[in-house]
């Protein structure tokens, strides 16, 4: 985490420059929407993904473009977001004006009528260049209610020494990936760290084989896990659970770098910021985390360089060489609250979020910006390349009104866990399909 903060300082310095230079940008003239009444508006951002520098940029730019108005940013926790949105968004006095919402939660609130129609902004902020899956999650009755904010980028991390020792090359297809993982697997080392409840990663095989969780037929949702293509992907998942991992079946996608650092896993898949959590024993210099001397900083730098030297990273490959797998994309959307009394100001903020400057700042911060045109701002190191490749191919969970209930009931966690404990794939899929249909309709 310390490393993250150091990185953020660097980004902050870079951003201050961008912020200064954007002051005279003619495209952000507020008069085009008529000057709204000055007011204070509230933006809810979740977790710490949007760093301080980005927040500062939003506040400064918003207040410069809307003289007399103020922007207050309140940080919310992901874990408590849904109950808060259920209550606050329904209150005229308390509602935040603009909210960030998890992409899998987006459809539920969109259908419930919690957000304002912002279709008129769609073309202006990027149109077809916006991350399509995220746009879909914010559409109801053909109108846009929520637009993509950023996508979390995932990549596969691997231990280069273990690859060399086992004579394994970086895989170029998803089938080769499975082979490599099995080859690396031993009693003490997991070829691929794949915990039983990790449906985020499991979705990669499901989607890449052409399957899905659920599909809409007319007005009805139908579980799609028993479709032949889905089953094909799920059989690969079952194979990995059985032959390529020692990860416990009762664990989820949290902290996969812990076994990796302990030498108990040769590969894991995680958001690219996991690079800051890699701490291989052979690289650890034993620096006191409180030590802020130059010497300690230098040692920490060496440590990070050493870690990255021994760790490789690649985007999960697809069915054919040169393709990328279709993976589940985490990330979030931006929406304007329907009950907000400051619709114009809220839209002005949304425009700032989609300004090239801010989109690039998101990319520089390691996030895939909602407008893919600016994805290159993530840089060109291996992490960024892996992240961008993965993200452009990413897919979301079905944009069903009641998808949030599927997550609330933890149907997918249960389902993948059943596969991990050796249940018959077809039977488990049929049962899960039934639950999905019951929940989504």
């Amino acid at each position, binding site marked *: *985490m310390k490393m993250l903060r150091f990185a953020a300082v660097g980004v902050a310095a870079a951003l201050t420059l961008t912020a200064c230079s954007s002051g005279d940008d003619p495209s952000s003239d507020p008069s085009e929407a008529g000057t709204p009444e000055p007011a204070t508006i509230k933006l809810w951002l979740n977790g710490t993904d949007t760093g301080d520098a980005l927040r500062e940029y939003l506040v400064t730019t918003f207040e410069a473009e809307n003289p007399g108005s103020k922007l207050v940013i309140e940080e*919310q*926790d992901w*874990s408590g977001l849904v*109950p808060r949105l259920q*209550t606050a968004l329904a*209150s005229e006095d308390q509602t935040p004006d603009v909210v960030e919402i998890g992409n899998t939660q987006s459809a539920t609130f969109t259908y419930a009528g919690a957000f304002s129609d912002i279709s008129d902004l769609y073309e202006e902020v990027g149109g077809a260049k916006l991350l399509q899956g995220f746009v879909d999650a914010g559409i109801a009755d053909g109108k846009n209610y929520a637009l993509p904010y950023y996508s979390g980028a995932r990549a596969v991390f691997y231990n280069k020494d273990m690859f060399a020792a086992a004579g394994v090359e970086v895989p170029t297809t998803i089938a080769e990936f499975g082979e490599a993982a099995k080859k690396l697997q031993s009693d003490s080392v997991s070829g691929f760290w794949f915990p039983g409840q990790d449906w985020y990663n499991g979705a990669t095989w499901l989607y890449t084989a052409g399957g899905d969780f659920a599909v809409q037929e007319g007005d009805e949702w139908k579980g799609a896990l028993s479709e032949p293509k889905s089953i094909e992907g799920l059989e690969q998942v079952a194979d990995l659970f059985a032959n390529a991992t020692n990860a416990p079946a009762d664990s989820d996608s949290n*902290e996969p770098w812990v076994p990796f650092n302990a030498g108990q896993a040769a590969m894991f898949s995680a958001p690219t910021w996991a690079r800051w959590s890699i*701490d291989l024993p052979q690289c650890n210099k034993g620096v006191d985390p409180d030590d802020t001397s130059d010497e300690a900083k230098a040692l920490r730098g060496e440590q990070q360089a050493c870690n990255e030297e021994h760790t490789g990273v690649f985007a999960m490959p697809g069915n054919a060489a040169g393709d990328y797998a279709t993976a589940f994309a985490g990330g979030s959307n931006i929406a304007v609250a329907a009950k907000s009394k400051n619709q114009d100001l809220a839209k002005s903020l949304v425009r700032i979020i989609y300004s090239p400057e801010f989109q690039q700042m998101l990319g520089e911060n390691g996030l895939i910006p909602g407008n893919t045109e600016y994805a290159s701002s993530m840089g060109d190191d291996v992490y960024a390349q892996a992240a961008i490749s993965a993200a452009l191919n990413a897919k979301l969970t079905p944009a069903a009104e009641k998808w949030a209930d599927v997550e609330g009931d933890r149907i997918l966690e249960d389902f993948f866990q059943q596969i991990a404990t050796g249940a018959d794939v077809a039977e488990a899929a049929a049962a899960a399909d039934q639950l999905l249909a019951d929940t989504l309709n």
Partner: protein
Amino acid sequence: MSALATPPAPAPHGVPEVASAPARPARRRASAESGRTASPLARRLLGLVAVLVALAWVFPIYWMINSAFLPLNKLQAPDPTFLPFGGTLSNFRGVVQDPTFWAAMRVSLAVVVIVLLAALMFAFLAALAVSRFRFRGRKSFILTILVVQMIPAEGLFISQYQMLDGWDLVNKVSGLALVYTAAILPFTIWMLRGFVAGVPIELEEAAMVDGLSRVGAFFRITFPLLAPGLVASGVYGFLQAWNEYTLALVVMTDPAQRTLPLWLQGLVEANRATDWGVVMAGASVIAIPVIVFFLFVQGKMTSGLVAGAVKG
């Protein structure tokens, strides 16, 4: 707690005997210590058992504090570290130097103080009514506050939020304190009922005969006898208000108004659920006021339970 069972105390005759009532528990305890078990050897064995049980019971708490001293790589190692030797204080330093922690501490303390004062005062008055008077609706009232405790509260937050919103009490200490007070009042009334019934009315009346006013008699005679009961109920209320998460989550959305449980959850997320040593340090520090309050009132609470727990 168990105070609820206490029926109207059969009035003892004469003040002196009654006045010695609060001393009874102590005397009884002394005798309980002295007798009953036969050999000193058996007693010592039982004592050993008690200490072993105590150690087993406290182990999870020890583990929490131990973890708070450990750096991350020791925390999630194949072999556990049982003693925090060579441990780091940096986790605690991080918590104590965090201004948001102190802000949350202030909010939590403010909420707890209001809740305790309001709940104890209101519950006390209600307890006085149901144990000192017979009136139409008395049993219904008592049954209602029992039944209310049986209804799960997980689904209430929507209505509670709307109500607070209507009165502009969202993101306010007073709003959160209001819903907390309502939540713990039924239990507190149940408990205090027993304690009030345990104080014989004749004590007060005798004092009035001696020339004190009714109010004076009440505050000089009855109130002190109720102190243990108030303390015992207060402990329960303190714990509830201090640890509550779900309601605080929806009522206190402004980061500046976070209570400690919300702050702790925020700490988990800010560390992307990776730096557990910091989280455990936070949890340990949060637990300190509770434990201090507990140990501070422990003696009184035990006698409080004694005074109220048993039919007179």
